[in-house]
């Protein structure tokens, strides 16, 4: 086949994908003994994109990351970086660098030598190493601490060294394994902003593993939600948050106020929804008119989609009555837990603004929302 007749073939093949993905994962499977750690996972990551694998522990996201880094090999499927299959390529020959959760800084080397490690392994000239290490350290704001040992640095500084040690090699992809998990809350939030700006500034392609949904949403261009080895949904943070594909994704990405029930009769364009709790009147929901009546479904709403009122609001939209059970003041926001059924408590939030009507525990209230916000999930 390798004759002169092949070029046009190749050319047409390339025209099919004008912007090749940096990472192309095709149906990878990874077994740990009898357990399917990763089950038929496929995704692409574009150049310059910040892509997060989000899921609870044991979801298989770390396995995916380790397969990208080359520490594990998939049992099935293929994994391409810059169009080249990585199967059988050892970690030291892959154009990726991993920032470890524990940072894995070399304790016997100075900050400078830690960052220079990758360049030295690639036998870069020492004059170039000097300049590039300085540049990387400047980027992570650690200039002037080259001579320190990792043990002499704070957690946040160690995190920066780990980042610089990866960046300095100019890898095609930076892999981040729970990069901020070891930092305290305040530092974590500051680093989220900083990591994101470094990524944008340097045009890095990043794949980040995290179980922290807020972190994933703040930093990512796209998020892949993983659970039990499978990838459930891939999309922009707004997409997966506002239009989760199932209840698991909905619950994992934020508070999901749920109400199980059955689809009822049509009213105009919309349908009635009979909650399972007997004391709640039917609500209107928006779903396909062809949906079979009587089909069980669960209605889900985000806290911020709910409005709360003392009097029954004069709207034709859905309204649910309840009683405030707890008021949780959290600074700029106040959380209200509202009992809407014998075994059902919904959460809503309001800005802690003194000019707004205030509610107290025990108050009877009405929760209402705009019809299209209510999302239905079928079993």
């Amino acid at each position, binding site marked *: 086949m390798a004759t002169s007749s092949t070029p046009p073939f190749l050319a047409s093949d390339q025209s099919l994908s004008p912007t090749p993905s940096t990472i192309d994962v095709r149906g990878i499977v990874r077994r740990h003994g009898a357990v399917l750690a990763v089950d038929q996972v496929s995704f692409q990551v574009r150049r310059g994109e910040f892509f997060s694998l989000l899921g609870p522990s044991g979801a298989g996201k770390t396995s995916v990351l380790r397969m990208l*880094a080359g520490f594990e090999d998939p049992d099935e499927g293929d994994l391409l970086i810059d169009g080249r299959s990585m199967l059988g390529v050892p970690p030291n020959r892959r154009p990726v660098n991993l920032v470890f959760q524990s940072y894995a800084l*070399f304790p016997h080397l100075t900050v400078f030598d830690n960052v220079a490690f990758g360049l030295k392994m690639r036998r870069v000239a020492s004059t170039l190493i000097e300049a590039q290490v300085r540049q990387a350290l400047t980027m992570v704001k650690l200039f002037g601490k080259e001579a320190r040992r990792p043990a002499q640095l704070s957690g946040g500084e160690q995190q920066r060294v780990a980042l610089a040690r990866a960046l300095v090699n100019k890898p095609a992809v930076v892999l981040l394994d729970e990069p901020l998990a070891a930092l305290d809350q305040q530092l974590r939030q500051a680093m989220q902003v900083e990591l994101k700006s470094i990524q944008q500034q340097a045009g890095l392609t990043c794949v980040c593993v995290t179980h922290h949904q807020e972190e994933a949403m703040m930093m990512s261009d796209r998020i892949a939600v993983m659970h039990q080895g499978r990838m459930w949904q891939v999309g922009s943070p707004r997409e997966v948050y506002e239009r989760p594909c199932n209840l698991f994704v909905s619950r994992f990405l934020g508070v999901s106020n749920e109400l199980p029930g059955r689809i009822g009769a049509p009213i105009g364009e919309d349908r009635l929804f009979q909650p399972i709790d007997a004391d709640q009147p039917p609500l209107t929901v928006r779903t396909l008119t062809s949906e079979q009546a009587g089909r069980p479904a669960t209605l889900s709403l985000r806290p911020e989609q709910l409005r709360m009122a003392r009097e029954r609001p004069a709207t034709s939209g859905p309204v649910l009555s309840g009683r405030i059970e707890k008021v949780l003041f959290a600074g700029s926001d106040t959380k209200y837990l509202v009992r809407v059924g014998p075994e059902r408590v919904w959460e809503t939030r309001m800005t802690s603004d003194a000019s707004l009507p205030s509610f107290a525990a025990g108050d009877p209230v009405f929760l209402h929302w705009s019809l299209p916000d209510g999302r239905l999930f079928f079993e």
Partner: protein
Amino acid sequence: MRRGWAGLSVVSILVMVFLYGPILVLVLYSFNAAHLSMAWRGTTLKWYAALLHDDALLAATANSLLIALVSTFGAMCLGGLLALGMEQMPHRRQRMIEGGLVLPLVIPEVMMGVALMLFFVMLKLPLGILTVMLGHIVFNVPLVTIMIRTRLRKLDPALREAAADLGADSWQVFRYVTLPLLRPAIWGAVLVAFTVSLDDFLVTFFTAGPGATTLPLKVYSMIKSGVTPEINALSALLLLISMACVALSLHVQRREV
């Protein structure tokens, strides 16, 4: 409560006296000017000076040092490689080898000495410096392996992964990450193996032939003709060297993380 503590300190002091009293007496009498007498006739360093002019003693010292050096080196090579190799093995086999390693440490040393002697005779290896060296390697390998392995297992495996991720091949991972991090354990093991070899009597006794007299053997043969202050001086020196080695070993191992 207080009474209990007082009782405990009395016992502790007695134990210390029991442990270190004889050694202290020995060191003390190495400075005694009297010959063949327990009576104190003033302090002198002449027994130490005499050691320096005893040719047989100097030859034994040279033997001891040579044997300690070679057997330490041999044990380090074998034990170090074994410790590194064990890391790659399945857990069951690691545990089996661990059991095998402890065995030479717990069986009576006399048995080990006799067994080694019979083994060398069977191999028609003439007993001499070489057989003593081999014998010392045998009991030092487990020590070295266990010490290096302990350190190796404490290392974060992510460090080696990080090195590989940064482009190091397996040799470079070893050269630039594993080896430097093992250095304290390596020096600690060197000093312990050296000391144990220098001090060993039983295995040496059974595996040494003519011309392979080491310091402990020399002391033993000298004692047959009575305890002289010269022996006291020699023992005090040996004690000093051993203690220095062990103290240094503990120090280098404690220094780094």
